[in-house]
C-alpha cells in the first residue's frame, strides 16, 4: 500500500484531484482502490442499478449502507442531478467534503472555498434532507428524514409535532421551510468539523 507516485499517476487527473480536494497521494490511491472494488463491472463508473437486469450494483453492494436510515440520501448525493453514474473524480470530490478541516488554512480571496470547509459539510448535511434540491427543507422532507431516523415506537402525531417544533425553531422568515441559512444558524453551536469528518485511511 505504498504511495508511490507511479501508481498514482495511473489514475487519471490524479494531480488535479489532489489539488482540488486536498487529499494526499496515498489517500487518492486508497480511494481509487476502493472505487475499483466497488466497480465490479470495471466500467470506470459507479452506478446505482445495473440497467439490463435491474440488479443493484456498486452502491447497492455496500451492505452496511443499506442498513443506514438515510442510506439512500447519502448515495443519491453522489450522483449529480440527472446523472446515472459516478466516475472516480466525482466520487473523490464528494468524499473530500469529509476530510477533517485544516485549521490553519489561510484563504486568500482568489482561492475557492475548500472542499472540506464547514460550509461544504453543512451543505452536504442539508442535502440529506433536501432531496429535491430546491434549497429548502420543506416540512415533508423533514418528516421523511425524521421518520427514517426514528424508531417504531413513535406515533405519527409525535412525529408531526417534532417536525413542527423543528421548523418553528429554525424558520425565521416564516415560509414554513428551512433554508440553508436558517439551517446553518440553528447549528451554529455545534462543532461541524468534528461531527462531519472522517480520517481517511492511507
Amino acid at each position, binding site marked *: 500500500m505504498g504511495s508511490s507516485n507511479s501508481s498514482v499517476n495511473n489514475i487519471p487527473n490524479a494531480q488535479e484531484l489532489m489539488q482540488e480536494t486536498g487529499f494526499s497521494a496515498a489517500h487518492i490511491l486508497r*480511494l481509487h482502490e*476502493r472505487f475499483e472494488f466497488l466497480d465490479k463491472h470495471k466500467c470506470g463508473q459507479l452506478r*446505482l*442499478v445495473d*440497467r439490463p437486469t*435491474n*440488479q*443493484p450494483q456498486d452502491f*447497492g453492494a*455496500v*451492505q*452496511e449502507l*443499506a*442498513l*443506514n*436510515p*438515510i*442510506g*439512500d440520501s*447519502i*448515495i*443519491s448525493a453522489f450522483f449529480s*442531478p440527472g446523472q*446515472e453514474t459516478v466516475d472516480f473524480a466525482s466520487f473523490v470530490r464528494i*468524499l473530500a467534503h*469529509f476530510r*477533517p478541516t485544516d485549521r490553519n488554512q489561510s484563504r486568500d480571496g482568489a482561492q475557492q472555498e475548500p472542499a472540506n470547509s464547514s460550509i461544504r459539510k453543512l451543505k452536504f*448535511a442539508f442535502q440529506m*434532507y433536501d432531496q*429535491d434540491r430546491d434549497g429548502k427543507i420543506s*416540512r415533508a422532507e423533514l418528516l421523511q428524514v*425524521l*421518520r*427514517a*431516523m*426514528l*424508531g*417504531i*415506537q413513535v*406515533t405519527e*402525531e*409525535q*412525529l408531526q*409535532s*417534532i417536525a*413542527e*417544533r*423543528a421548523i*418553528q425553531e*429554525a424558520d425565521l422568515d416564516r415560509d414554513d421551510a428551512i433554508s440553508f441559512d436558517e*439551517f446553518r444558524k*440553528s*447549528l451554529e*453551536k455545534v462543532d461541524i468539523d*468534528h*461531527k*462531519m469528518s*472522517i480520517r*481517511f*485511511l492511507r
Partner: protein
Amino acid sequence: MDLHISRRTEVLLVVFILFSLLYGSRGEIPPKPTGGVTIVPPVKPDGPQAFPDAEKANLPVFTMDYPRIQIPFEITLWVLLASFAKIGFHVYHKITIWVPESCLLISIGLIVGGIMHSVHEEPPAVLSSNVFFLYMLPPIVLDSGYFMPTRPFFENIGTVLWFAVVGTLWNSIGIGMSLFAICQIEAFEVQDINLQENLLFASIISAVDPVAVLSVFEDVSVNEQLYIVVFGECLFNDAVTVVLYNMFNFVAEMPVVEPVDVFLGVARFFVVGLGGMGFGILFGFVAAFTTRFTSRVREIEPLFIFMYSYLAYLVAELFAISSIMAIVTCALTMKYYVEENVSQRSCTTIRHVVKMLGSISETLIFFFLGVVTITTEHEWNWGYILFTLLFAFIWRGLGVLVLTQIINPFRTIPFHLKDQFGLAYGGLRGAISFALVFTLPDNIGRKQLFVTATIAIILFTVFLQGISIRPLIEYINVRRTNRNLDTINVEVHCRLMEHTIAGIEDLCGQWSHFYWKDKFMKFNNRILRRILIRDNRAESSIVALYKKLELQNAMEILDTYETFIKNSGKPKKKFLASDLKSMHDILSKNMYKIRQRTVAYTNKHALPNDSQTKEILIRRHTSIRRSLRPGSFQSSVVPKSHKYFSLPAGKSLESKFPPTRLSYTDDQETMSEVAYPSRRSRFHQPGRSSSRAMMPLQRLDTLKEAPSVDVLDESTGERGRMGHGMSRTNSSSSNARIPAPRRQFPPSVDHDSSSADNFRNGHHEATAEEEEQQQQQQPSSPTPAWAAETQDNTAQNPLLRRPQWNPKRK
C-alpha cells in the same frame, strides 16, 4: 423513612463495631464470660477447675467457639460494614453528587479507624502485599477491563498508551528528580534519601486512580474522548507503575547503577508489558474456546470467566510480569466471544458478579485506607510532604500539556485546553499507590515517611480534587457529548450527521479510522469466530425470543397513551415545556443509534445498559407485529405461510432475496399508473427525478394515513432494503395498513412522505426471514457491538413468560 433507615444503620454499625472490637482481630477470647454466656474451654478430663460450677460433665446447652470461625466471620463483618456505609450514602443521594463515593468511604474508614485506635485495636492485616495483590486487586481490574467500552478504547488506544506509559514515566522521573533535589536542601532533614529511593517513591505516587473522576465525568457527560483516555490511562498506568516500582525496587538495593541496568530495565519493561498482554490474550481465547462446549452445563458457565481471568492474573504474577495487563486483556478478549456462547442468564450473572466483586473490593480498599490512616504510625515531615504534593501536581500538569502537544497532530479530534485541564486535574491517586507503599521493603530507611506522604497525597487528591472537579468541569464547560442539546433541531440534525458519517465510512470501506481494526475484523470473522463460537444456536431460542418480545410489546401498547396535542394543522402551535421535554425524550429514546458512535458509557457503579441491541430487537419484532395486525389489509395479501421462514444457517440474505429495483428514470410515468409500485426503488435518482418519482402517489388521497408504514420503513431500513423482490399487489394496500386511530392527517403533509414510504416498503415475507437472519447475522456482522447482549432484554421484564400462542410459527 429515610431517617428511620439511617438510624437503624447507625445502630447496626455501632453494634457491629462493638462486636468486632470485642472479639478483636487478634482473636483473643476474653477470659471472662460476658453477659451470661458460658465460655467452655476445650474439655480436659482432669480439670475440675474448668468447670467452676458443674461437677460432672453436663451436656453444655450453649457453647461458643470463636476461634474456629474467626477469620471468615471477621471478613464478613468488615465487608458488611463497608457495604452498609455504601447503602448509607445513597440514602441521601444528593451527597453522592457533590462528594464522590471514595471520599465518603475514606471518611467512614477514618471514623472507624479512630474508634479502633482509641480502644487500641489493630486493624486487620489486609494490607499485606499478598492479600491486597492477590485478593483485592484482581476484582477491581476485572471490573474495569470487562466493562471497558471497546470501540472508543481501540480508537484511542494510541493516545491511551501514550499517556499511560510515557506519562507515567514522565511523572515518576520528574517527581523523583525534583524530590531528590529537594532532599539536598538541608533544612528538610531528608538527606539520607538517595536518588533510587526517591525514584521509587515517585513511581509509587504517580499511579493515578480516577475512580471518582470517572463518575463525575459520566454525570457531566464530558466528551467521549476525554472519558476514554482517562479511563484507559488509569488502567494501563497501573501496569506501568508496578513495573517501574519493581524495577526501582530492585535498583534501589544496588549500590551502584550501571548503564547496562538501565538498558535491562527498559527491556524488562517491554517483556512485562507485552508478556502480560500475551498471557491475557491466550487465556482469553482459551476461555472463549471452552465456552463453546458448555451448552450442557449452563450453571457453571460464569465460573469459567472468573477462573480463567484469575488464572491469567496468577500466572502473570508467577512470572512477575504485569498481571494487571494480563487480566485486562483477558477480559477484553474473552468478553466478545463468551457473550455469544453462553446463555443469557449466564451472561447476566457474569456481569452482575463482576460488578459486585469489583464494587466490594473497591469499597473495602477505600475503607481500609481510612482505617489505616489513623492506626499506623506516621512520620511527618512538612517539607517533604508538601513538596511532594506540589511536584505531583506540577508534573502532572506539565506532563499532560507536553504530551498532548505531541500527540494532538495524530488525533482526529485533538484535545483542547479544557480537555487537557480535565485530564490533568483528574489525576487522583488511589488504591494502587496505597498498596504499593505498604509493600516497600523495610530496609528502606524512611519507609514511614513514604507511607505518610503517600497517604497524604491520596487523601489530598481524593478529597480536594475529587470534590472540586465537578464544579470546575461544569464551570469551564468542557466539551460535552451531544446529549440533551438545546433544541430539537440540533438534536435531529446531529443525529443525521452521525448517520451520514457512518454511511460514508461504510462507503469508503473503512471502519472507525483504523486500518488495523479493519484487518482484524476480517481476520476475526473469517477465522476466529469459526473456532471460538458455537454455531448451532438452538432455533427455538430465537423463536422464543420473538414470542417474548411480541408479548412485551403488546403490553407496552396497552400501557402507553398519547401525550401530544393533536396537530390539527394550525399554523403555529404553542409548545409547552412538557411537550418539549417529551419530544426530547422521544428523540433520545427512539432515534436509531449510530452503530459506531454510540458511547457505551459504563458507570463505575452501575451495570451497563443494552439499549442498542434492545432497540434493534424491537425494530425487528415490531415489524412482525405490524404484519400480524388484525385490521391490516396486507394480511390478505401476504400468505401467512410466508412468514417466519428461517434461513438455513450461514446463508446470506441476499442469496435468498436478490433485491430487485426499479429505476425511476424510465418509469416515472409508469409509476403513476402501475399497480405494482411496491417495487421500491431504493436508488431513486437524485435531483428532480426523485421528487417526481415520489409525486405520482398523489392519487392515493384516499389512503393518506400512510404513516404507519413508516414503521416498517425503519424496521426494514435497518435490516437492509434488500429482499424487496416480493410482489405486492398494490402499494395502496400497504398504505392502508393502519390502525384506525391514526387517520386524521392533513393531506398536504402526507404526499411526499407517504410516497417515500411506499417505496420503502416492507414486504412481510421478507421481514421474518430478515429478522431471523439478522439475529443470526448480528453476531457475524462486524458492526453491531458484541451483539449477544440481545438476550439480556428478556431477563429484564419479569412479566414475560413463554407465551402460549403462536399463530404463525411454522
